[in-house]
């Protein structure tokens, strides 16, 4: 019995030793070629990643299509690797394990500060005017309003991920601006749910009375019928701010040729297949630059997430 189990285990082990490079999420592999392309920047594969802001299970599927598109457009090998957190995406970018990334506003600013010379090159059509919703459980009886309702004071409150622009940074900024105090002072309890879907689930269950969420994730889940409007609703929409963008390392031209960054930008801007765009989800891409995100940097410094330069 044991021997048989062992045999099948060894067989499985050997089987997957060969297939792991495609099956494993981060490309950990015994296959030196695959490992090389993941770990070393000198290999000629462009590796990109994206922050896991929602629907993580399908990230691989969604972004593999984008990889295929970029590969066809650029004529080089392009691979997507999924990561588990916003900071992991930034770290991979910083360590040159990925050369291109679909960042949020804050993670992009952090990444570009850590990698001098890197550039924001494209953003979604919606991203110059992104916003967050403040949502509340029905038991709070807080009604939607044009101004941030002061009735949220003293409630329990959850942000999304600690490093999220729309789930943490900007809501915190607007709450401080409108109510004149820090979240710790204003709310009876402050939690960090980890991501937007979870924020919605926690406020819908009443575990937290109020929360902050990415407006696109909310709209999408509402349309999909995953939200019970009797239990949770939007009580305020923040003013708009710039959010997601494609950021590329400054040294890509050294690896793939003089005009590579320009060609990459062009390929991103030319993406018009609705199926591809749904991965983000955006209606299209427009040009972007680092300057656009100065307000995010300023906010991050004022909220204390980033230290000001000396």
């Amino acid at each position, binding site marked *: *019995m*044991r021997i048989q*189990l*062992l045999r099948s*285990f*060894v067989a499985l*082990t050997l089987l*997957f030793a060969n*297939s*792991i490079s495609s*099956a*494993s*999420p*981060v490309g*950990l592999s015994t296959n030196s070629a695959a*490992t090389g392309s*993941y*770990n*070393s920047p000198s290999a000629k594969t462009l590796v990109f990643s994206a922050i*896991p802001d*929602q629907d*993580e*299970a399908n990230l691989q599927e969604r972004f593999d299509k984008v990889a295929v598109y970029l590969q066809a457009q650029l004529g080089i090998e392009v691979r997507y690797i999924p*990561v*588990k*957190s*916003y*900071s*992991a995406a930034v*770290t*991979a970018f910083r*360590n*040159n*394990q990925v050369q291109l990334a679909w960042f949020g506003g804050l993670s992009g600013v*952090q990444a570009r500060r*850590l990698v001098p010379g890197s550039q924001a090159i494209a953003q979604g059509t919606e991203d110059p005017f992104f916003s967050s919703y403040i949502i509340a*459980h029905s*038991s709070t009886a807080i009604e939607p309003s044009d101004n941030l309702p002061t009735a949220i004071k003293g409630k*329990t409150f*959850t942000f999304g991920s*600690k*490093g999220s622009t729309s789930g943490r940074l900007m809501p915190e900024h607007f709450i401080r601006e409108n109510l004149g105090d820090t979240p710790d002072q204003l709310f009876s*309890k402050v*939690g*960090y*749910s*980890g991501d937007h*879907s*979870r924020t919605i*689930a*926690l406020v*819908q*269950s*009443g*575990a937290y009375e109020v929360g902050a969420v990415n407006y696109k994730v909310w709209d999408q889940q509402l349309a999909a019928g*995953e939200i*019970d409007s009797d*239990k949770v609703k939007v009580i305020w929409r923040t003013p708009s701010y710039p959010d997601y963008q494609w950021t590329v390392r400054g040294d890509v031209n050294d690896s793939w040729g003089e005009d590579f960054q320009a060609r990459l930008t062009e390929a991103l801007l030319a993406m018009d297949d609705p199926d591809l765009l749904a991965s983000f989800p955006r209606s299209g891409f427009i040009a972007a630059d680092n300057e656009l995100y100065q307000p995010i940097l300023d906010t991050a410094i004022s909220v204390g*997430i980033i*230290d000001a330069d000396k």
Partner: protein
Amino acid sequence: MPLSAPNKTSSPAPQSISSAINTSAGALRTISFWFAICALLCLLLVDIDISTTDPWAEMGLMTAGALSPLVWSWPTLLSSLANTFAFALQGVTVAAIVGFALALGYRFTLVRAFCAFIRSIHELFWALLFIQVAGLSSLTGLLAIAIPYAGTLAKIYGELFEEVDPAPSNNLPRGKSRPLSEFFYSVLPLAWHSMATYTSYRFECAIRSSAILGFVGLPTLGFHLETALSDGHYSQAAAFFYALLLMIGTLRLWLHKSLLPIYLVAVFYYLPPQATISWQLLVRFVTEDIVPAPLRGQALLSGETMSNVVQWINLLWQQQIWPGLLNTVLLGQISLVFTGLLALALLPLNSSLFIQRRWKRGIGDSVLILLRTLPETLLAFIGLLILGPSMLPAILALGIHNGAIIGHLLGRYTEELNLRADASRGVTLYFYEVLPRIYRQFLAFLFYRWEVILRETAILGILGIATLGFYIDSAFETFRFDVALLLILVSAALNISVDQFARYLRQRLQLKTVPESL
């Protein structure tokens, strides 16, 4: 009052028994009393309000998911299962070798402090540190398990060596002192069995740790489990969780000593520890990232720099270190006592003294495996849904997880008690015979878990409880590795103090690590 029950019964008996035994039972009673009082006082200081309104919709989805596990990709499931096993086995193997070497010098305070230091850092934080220089590589996974486990195994081995029966070694002919031969012939053989038992138990823990490493991106079961949970795909989450449960539940069937070499070769062939470590990254990490911000690029000895550093530490102390320490200690203390109570309540589940039928005990065993395998973050999330945000879900999560672990160990330990033929049964047996006889062992296990509980308070950020680990996580999230390192050093100092205190108690109460030596 339930808290005092174990204390009352721990006294083995009437006055007729020799005073020596009475005194030591009294000490056990006193220490249990103070721990319970401490926890009750802590309870007064923390927030344990229940505040939720409507958890049932989400709970319904979770239940439905648990009942209808769905494997969306077999290759993914199997490869993450294999990765989980590989990291765990490699990690424990390396940890056992390094831990053994460290245990040889365990009588030196410095070595003990070093071991307490490396095991005080949660696996996830070790992984986050290595990711900065070695990326998401197989080497990162191996080291993240091997390092803290080496610290733990060194402690266990070291204490086992201290506790072996000194008679054989005392009877060696005096004269030529050959410490090495003495150790190998009169100490190691006596400790060997316990070492093997404990190491194989740690392997189960390592599988859980390995799975949890997926939370930060290594390709183990936790990667997909966490993803599915945060997306609310409970059927998929259930499939990954059951796979983990199955692996842990069947360990005894397939992880046999004689097969170990084969497994070892297989896992090192399958997932060779490797990483392209860039010196540039390493140098940057050591000379820049972890250097306190006010020191970077400054003249070290200038007065201004020093005052900036003092200010930096002062601010951190006020905003993070002090509240972090306070919350960690409060949560740890309450959870420790709750863990103890739960362990005592759960131990009959897998003890043949209380459940005679094999199949019934099988069920009890499965319940314990289930409870200790559920990741604490999941328990905390469920607790948060039902009870709202407070320290209560954290206490429950830590207590259930650790209580099931100690309950399991105690249950196994009761198997070694020899009862008289006319021993009582059921409740009477439990309170008047088993509990008094295992109480020392119980305290020994509990003191071991103490530092583990403190370390695990780190991963409950969803509850917004600002423990040291919460701030360490925030520091990693904002790329302030200098702050992360400082906080890690503080939590290591806390851990070393707790370890020293537990060691003092253990010696004072003559608690033994080894079941056989009791």
